[in-house]
């Protein structure tokens, strides 16, 4: 073996599950980093002079670092890791191009690391969720193209004729993200990376909502669709419901970006389409949840005994809450009270952390022992993480919603923004405290992952 070959084997190994395992570990690491940025932001809002004079800890710089790293680094990495295991299994084959998937993993982590550093240094495009600068955008697209290639070829070389629903969502998730990123970041116009004039807002929020609807949600749903029947030891309740859920998600989610702009000067017809389709989103959500929960029926004991099962179940409950709240806050009469304030921050956390994040953690703990061929180091530590994250995110939901309602009502009655600051101060303090629980969960999880890899009891699966 030449040294080059050895290096290749080290960094782009071809052995089974290596990419999946590394994506899961990446997710666990970025969970810690991303929530730490979040805590700095929360501390800033509670005690603004705490980090005074340190440019790279200034609120406006660490906020995009927080959102990017938790959303992409943590949730997306962990979901990809689980997907890279699940798809080959249900297709009864091996992942095609393990080396390519590993390449994607490195490029992806390089993108996350660059973002984690460049955003606090002030390199940003200034568009929410599209902050990463052009070179990092290129890395993201390359990573997703690698994954798409690997998964498409896995499907092409499968031994199972029928495509299980997880395959649709998993394959779709990476493919759609790869194609969404380019128009979303207006990548043909570096370095600004934006359209000109008010129409940029239409582009931005079409992308901004799709990144949750076409990247995060499908991958989370793919994981839930696989793990819930496995833990329940039952076949999926209904194929028809899966079909309805999949196609309505695609047909509706892609039209609702303008519900972020209901009060901005963009065309009314666009807002109308977005409101109608937002309300109709009840259909894909309900079909997925009914399908999953009816699969679980009669098997609750299995879920009570399984931490991954509980995490995924909790994720599905948050999905329900998010998607009851979502259509409601898409109604102009409701959004009058909730837009621009902490209500939306509450929605964002129950969605991305409660639903997608807890589902990703469920996927991580279900898949990690299978791809590492070692038992989880400590089941009670998963339990501890579960409770810390669950209490933390529930706390976020309560205090942020309360703060948001206060802000909304004061503003609608002629009060100034400045006047609401002392009113919401206690809630922002409470948010920082609940955040510490979540961060505790993140670090305990990372410890458990590392110990599983080095100390976990080996097993053959």
């Amino acid at each position, binding site marked *: 073996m030449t040294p080059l070959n050895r290096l290749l084997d080290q960094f782009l190994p071809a052995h089974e599950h290596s990419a999946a395992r590394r994506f899961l570990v990446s997710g666990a690491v970025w969970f810690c980093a991303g929530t730490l940025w979040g805590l700095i932001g929360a501390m800033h809002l509670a005690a603004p002079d705490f980090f005074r004079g340190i440019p790279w800890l200034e609120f406006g710089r660490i906020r995009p670092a927080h959102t990017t790293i938790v959303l992409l680094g943590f949730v997306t990495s962990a979901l990809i890791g689980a997907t890279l295991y699940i798809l080959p299994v249900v297709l009864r084959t091996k992942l095609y191009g393990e080396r390519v998937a590993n390449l994607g993993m490195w490029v992806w982590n390089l993108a996350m690391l660059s973002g984690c550093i460049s955003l606090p240094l002030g390199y940003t495009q200034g568009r929410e969720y599209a902050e990463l600068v052009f070179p990092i955008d290129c890395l993201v697209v390359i990573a997703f193209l690698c994954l798409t290639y690997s998964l498409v070829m896995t499907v092409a070389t499968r031994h199972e004729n029928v495509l299980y629903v997880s395959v649709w969502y998993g394959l779709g998730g990476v493919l759609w993200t790869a194609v969404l990123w380019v128009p979303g970041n207006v990548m043909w116009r570096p370095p600004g990376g934006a359209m000109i004039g008010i*129409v940029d807002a239409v582009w931005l929020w079409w992308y901004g909502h799709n990144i949750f609807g076409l990247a995060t949600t499908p991958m989370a749903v793919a994981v839930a669709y696989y793990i819930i029947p496995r833990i329940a030891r039952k076949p999926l309740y209904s194929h028809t419901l899966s079909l309805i859920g999949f196609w309505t998600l695609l047909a509706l989610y892609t039209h609702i970006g303008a519900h972020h702009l209901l009060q901005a000067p963009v065309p009314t017809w666009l807002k109308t389409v977005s409101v109608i389709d937002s309300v109709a989103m009840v259909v894909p959500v309900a079909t997925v949840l009914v399908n999953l929960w009816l699969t679980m029926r009669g098997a609750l004991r299995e879920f009570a005994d399984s931490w991954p099962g509980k995490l995924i179940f909790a994720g599905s409950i948050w999905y329900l809450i998010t998607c009851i709240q979502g259509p409601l806050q898409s109604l102009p009469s409701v959004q009058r009270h909730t837009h621009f304030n902490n209500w939306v921050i509450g929605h964002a956390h129950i969605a991305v952390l409660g639903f997608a994040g807890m589902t990703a953690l469920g996927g991580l703990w279900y898949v990690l022992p299978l791809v590492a061929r070692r038992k989880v180091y400590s089941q009670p530590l998963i339990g501890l993480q579960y409770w810390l994250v669950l209490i933390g995110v529930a706390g976020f939901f309560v205090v942020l919603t309360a703060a948001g309602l206060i802000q909304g009502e004061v503003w609608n009655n002629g009060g*100034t923004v400045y006047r609401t600051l002392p009113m919401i101060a206690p809630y922002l303090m409470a948010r920082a405290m609940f955040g510490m629980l979540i961060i505790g969960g993140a670090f305990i999880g990372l410890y458990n992952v590392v110990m599983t890899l080095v100390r976990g009891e080996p097993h053959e699966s």
Partner: protein
Amino acid sequence: MTPAVVIIGSMALFWAAFLGVVVIPTVTMPDRPSDTWRATSAAEERGRRLYIADGCVYCHSQYVRPQDWAEGAQRIARAGDYARQQPPLLGSERTGPDLSQQGGEHPDDWHRAHFTNPRHTSPASVMPSFSFRSAAQIADLTRYVQSLGGKDADLRVARQQHWKGLAVAAYANGPDANVAWIHSKVPEVWRKMPNPYPATEASLARGQRIYELYCVGCHGPSGDGRGTAQPYLDPPPLNFALLRRNLIEGKYIGGVLYYQIMNGITGTAMPYFKTQLESAKIWDVSNYVAYNFIGYVDYPLRTDQIDAAYENAEPPPPKGFVKDQP
């Protein structure tokens, strides 16, 4: 479903949506400037870039909605206000106030103090300090926020600059001449109006809270004008003790205080509080300033005009001051 159905079907829906809700708006929404729009200068563009780099957009929106009474609902945002902007900085959170009409709301020296540390001018602010930015960068940032609002903002900025010259000149004439000058701008009826409400303990307690939330950074804890913002401001915040020897006709001050707090003093850092404080609160903080820092309360010189005072309330005994009553 076959892989081809999943891939081709989903791509078809995806790009159809793109065509419908992205391409069609792009084609049908002209980038046409609105009536108040104007091009930005080089300094303003540099400031805009700093605005993006430091993430001001995560706390400040740049569009006013009809229900935003307190945020300048005089002008509701229009599509043409964002012409040529790449990207427009609409924002999705309002941790701080909307900035789309910010130009000319405050003079430059206010911004200098505020960007250095927002707590200087706004004690309860959670805005970050931008003291890590150089003086030149803060100047660029100031040019940018002063340009927000386009041509309307230019009018306000010009007004600030006009009065700034006069205020600085008046200050150079010495403290008493300066007070005479700022009082000369207060209409007669307000100058000869006493505070209609007595400086009761309750009123003073409310006034203290308001003073600490809004005024202390400039006028200072003892009302001598030496708050933490003072080094940045020209003219500096008023030392209220000066007013003791500058009462109107030797007896009135309540109406002057009210008028000035309500409307601010254009060209100086003294902001208006008409959107922040209701009428009764302004009278309360006037009482607090008069009682504690001037050492003179003019209630009840005339109660004939406003009949809403709490009749039986007696002012508390003075704290070390001789309270003059006619």
